[in-house]
């Protein structure tokens, strides 16, 4: 009986897979991360370039930027967070339904960026002062390839596996 079951499994293997539902859900989420359009400043342009024709986030399932936080999975904070804006950012984060992730794109979102100086009065030094961040992408602004790498890192965090091989510099 055991041997017969094993044989059936081996025959089905090319077209039937078995797995845990959690892993399947994680794979689904990772392959279709829908970002919230949250471009604040210069990094927003690189985010738009990442979604445009050359760098094409659509390959990774992430090209549908949702303006509404209720429909978004990942908030890509691209730009400087101001003290005046901080309340709005927190509201948007709270409005996103679980599961949600945050990518801090650019130096301003990581730690305030070039706008931190002794005596500064308007900039929140990093978005992780407001809520937890999953992936940090340094750069001022980071290249669109860096944003794609950040998304792949987030996918790796979700699924435990990396979808594409790491490109080795020549």
């Amino acid at each position, binding site marked *: 009986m055991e041997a017969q079951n094993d044989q059936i499994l081996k025959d089905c293997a090319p077209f039937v897979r078995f797995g845990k539902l959690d892993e399947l859900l994680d794979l689904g989420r990772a392959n279709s991360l829908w970002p919230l359009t949250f471009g604040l400043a210069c990094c927003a342009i690189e985010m738009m370039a990442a979604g445009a024709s050359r760098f094409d986030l659509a390959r990774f399932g992430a090209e549908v930027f949702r303006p509404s936080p209720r429909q978004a999975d990942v908030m890509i904070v691209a730009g400087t967070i101001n*003290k*005046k804006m901080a309340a709005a950012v927190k509201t948007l984060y709270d409005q996103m339904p679980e599961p949600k992730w945050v990518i801090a794109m650019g130096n301003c979102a990581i730690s305030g960026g070039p706008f931190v100086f002794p*005596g*500064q*009065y*308007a900039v929140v030094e990093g978005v992780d002062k407001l809520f937890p961040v999953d992936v940090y992408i340094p750069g001022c602004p980071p290249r669109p390839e860096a944003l794609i790498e950040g998304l792949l890192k987030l996918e790796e965090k979700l699924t435990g596996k990396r979808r594409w091989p790491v490109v080795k510099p020549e």
Partner: protein
Amino acid sequence: MAAPVFPPLPGPDLLSLCSFPLEVADYALKGYHLNAIVSPDQVLNAAADLDRAGLALDTITGVDWLVEGQMEVVYDYFHPNTGLRAVVRTKVPRANPVLPSISQVFPGANWHERETHDFFGIEFAGHPNLAPFLLPEDATYHPLRKDFIA
């Protein structure tokens, strides 16, 4: 590659049109053609004269001269047809900086005056809404003052 020094104004001469003294400045060094220093109560008349001459308001700059105890407000004007640039300056005491608002003459001054008020605390009498513009709505500090501590 020389810049034009003094483009002619179409119509009557600008110097005779204004009720306040305008002196010619060195454009190549300073970047403007005409300069005037007026007292705070002449600011509104200066704006009206330049409006009648067809100039537009470029910007309003505040400068905090802490050591002299004064705040300088610089009004930049330009003529959209010829590019003529005129600058009107005035100084107010730092302890009580009040100036008449020119937003009735130039509606564009509304935001410039709000910004100057935000950064320096200069009161513009007659301004319809001197609420914070670039700072948070409840801000009471004036960051570009030289004695501002964050």
